[in-house]
């Protein structure tokens, strides 16, 4: 072979150019990765910064113990408790729907359903989670509430019950899909051992698979809780926006998120106490989400089964 192999693409300067290009590209890719980190930092910074101006005006004691939340009234009270109560109430109602339904669906899909059923139903269920929340709000207000009023004539037009029920329906696919993944991660030999002992599919599912996947189930419930706590439009539309210190789901009340929406709809000047109050509310919302996640994480750690 007398052909020269020194093609221009392999010259030393071309190699150097390619290496330099690689490093430049890597730098930009890293910068993109850092956007996620900066977003988190920015969220914390903004919430803490604006809330600190809020707490210059309002003492922490009032914020945590006052039972009225009326920052926009002449007689202003800054007690976060009514909003927290509203948030917890709708979340509990939502979980009472989502946890049993989501877990049942997950057990069915993972342990009982034939392959083709699972493959068809999963994407359709995921559509439930893709419906815009404002549409769910409309559904809660115009369909679910009138339906509930058939059985509970006393029920007011705005109530936390229908909002909570609809949120629960909305988070069913999140709960079911994460739980199902967890159950399918339980190794097959454990099921086979159980079947060999003469257990039926249901006994295997409830006494072997579910305990084995418990940490994954806990993670699914935590995800559901985070969704329910942060859900905004359904409660803003269907639960009314009056802060109300009650745990009775049949009453109207505002949640933390609904309050933020209510203030944002108005025309509050930048830097006023009302403007700052939504950041304080947002901070509380983040803290509640964080607490649930930390509790869930430690639960998950404690009950994790290693195979």
């Amino acid at each position: 072979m007398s052909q020269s192999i020194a093609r221009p693409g392999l010259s030393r300067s071309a190699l150097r150019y390619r290496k330099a290009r690689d490093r430049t590209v890597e730098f930009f890719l890293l910068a993109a990765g850092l956007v996620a980190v900066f977003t988190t930092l920015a969220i914390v910074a903004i919430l803490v910064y604006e809330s600190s101006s809020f707490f210059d005006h309002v003492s922490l004691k009032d914020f945590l113990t006052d039972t009225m939340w009326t920052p926009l009234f002449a007689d202003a009270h800054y007690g976060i408790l009514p909003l927290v109560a509203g948030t917890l109430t709708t979340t509990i109602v939502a979980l009472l729907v989502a946890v049993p339904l989501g877990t049942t669906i997950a057990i069915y899909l993972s342990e009982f359903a034939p392959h083709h059923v699972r493959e068809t139903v999963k994407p359709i269920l995921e559509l439930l989670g893709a419906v815009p929340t404002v549409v769910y709000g409309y559904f809660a207000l115009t369909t679910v509430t009138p339906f509930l009023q058939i059985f509970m004539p006393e029920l007011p037009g705005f109530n936390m019950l229908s909002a909570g029920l609809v949120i629960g329906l909305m988070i069913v696919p999140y709960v079911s899909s994460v739980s199902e993944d967890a159950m399918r991660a339980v190794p097959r030999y454990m099921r086979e051992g159980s079947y060999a002992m003469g257990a039926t599919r249901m006994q295997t599912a409830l006494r072997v698979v579910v305990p084995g996947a418990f940490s994954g189930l806990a993670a699914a419930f935590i995800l559901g809780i985070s969704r329910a706590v942060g859900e905004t439009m359904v409660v803003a539309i269907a639960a009314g926006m009056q802060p109300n210190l009650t745990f009775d789901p049949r009453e109207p009340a505002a949640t933390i998120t609904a309050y933020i929406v209510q203030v944002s709809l108005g025309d509050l000047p930048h830097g006023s106490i009302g403007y700052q109050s939504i950041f304080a509310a947002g901070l509380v919302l983040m803290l509640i989400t964080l607490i649930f996640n930390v509790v869930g994480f430690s639960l998950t750690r404690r009950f994790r089964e290693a195979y």
Partner: protein
Amino acid sequence: MSAANPAQYRNVDALRTGLSRRKMLDQVFVLIGLIVMLGCLVILAILFIDLVRDGAPRFTLDFFTSFASRHAERAGILAAWVGTTLVMIVTACCAVPVGVAAAIYLEEYAPKNWFTAIIEINVTNLAGVPSIVYGLLALGLFVYQFDLGQSIVAAGLTLALLILPIVIVATREAIRSVPNSIREAAYGLGATRWEVTKDHVLPYSTGGVLTGMILGLSRAIGETAPIITIGALSFIAFLPESPFKSEFPFISFSWLNDPFTVMPIQMFNWVSRPDQAFQSNAAAAGAILLGMTLLMNGVAIWIRYRFRKKINW
């Protein structure tokens, strides 16, 4: 053992009834599972039928070409769908390049160390942050610190941050499913890391990237809370400036700074009015919004299916 012992007969009988009872419980559970699942699907159907039925009288051409109005029967969604389209363009242009780049970094470049772990934890956590908190971030940062005002670009950036984790996760999954033998073959021929990524890994991941983008946008299109928080107006009777000009340079970006409204906000505005006539407007807008979301999800599922079928490693 022989079956002569009567006590054992009794045991076998007990076993048999126990077994048949347990088998029946099995069947009962299958039934419960099916009922629950069908129940959820039926509710989804009711929701859709409800919207279409309530909104049916409003599905006219005028509805798409009129601005919001104090008179329910004259109000339309012109400003809303134009606003939604423009905001989605900004969101896609920001979220897709950044998300794909971040995913490539995490999968192909990042060393396994604490620094990479921090980025990964952040991506996971951001997916769990309530959407209204993104609205607060945008209100403090984009609207006031960067002085973007209540504009299309502020809304687009907010939603881009919101869907970034979705795009990153989908792209990473797609990249991860490309077998290593392909990378090794390219490296063996002397390709640099970027050449391997751009010429081999990315083309094979196109399906996943597209799926992630569409799912992300279908989430963004229905997001209401963050946009309300940055203070979008719900009553807008004009359009943003047109991006196309008759004279040079033919394209203008001044629409980025215009005030706007989007479909979900228009719907929220109509829902919260006590006047019953506006409810059917809300239903019509909701049906269109839901139809768009379902269509986007359907396309995403179809793309995923197509690409999975086409590629045989």
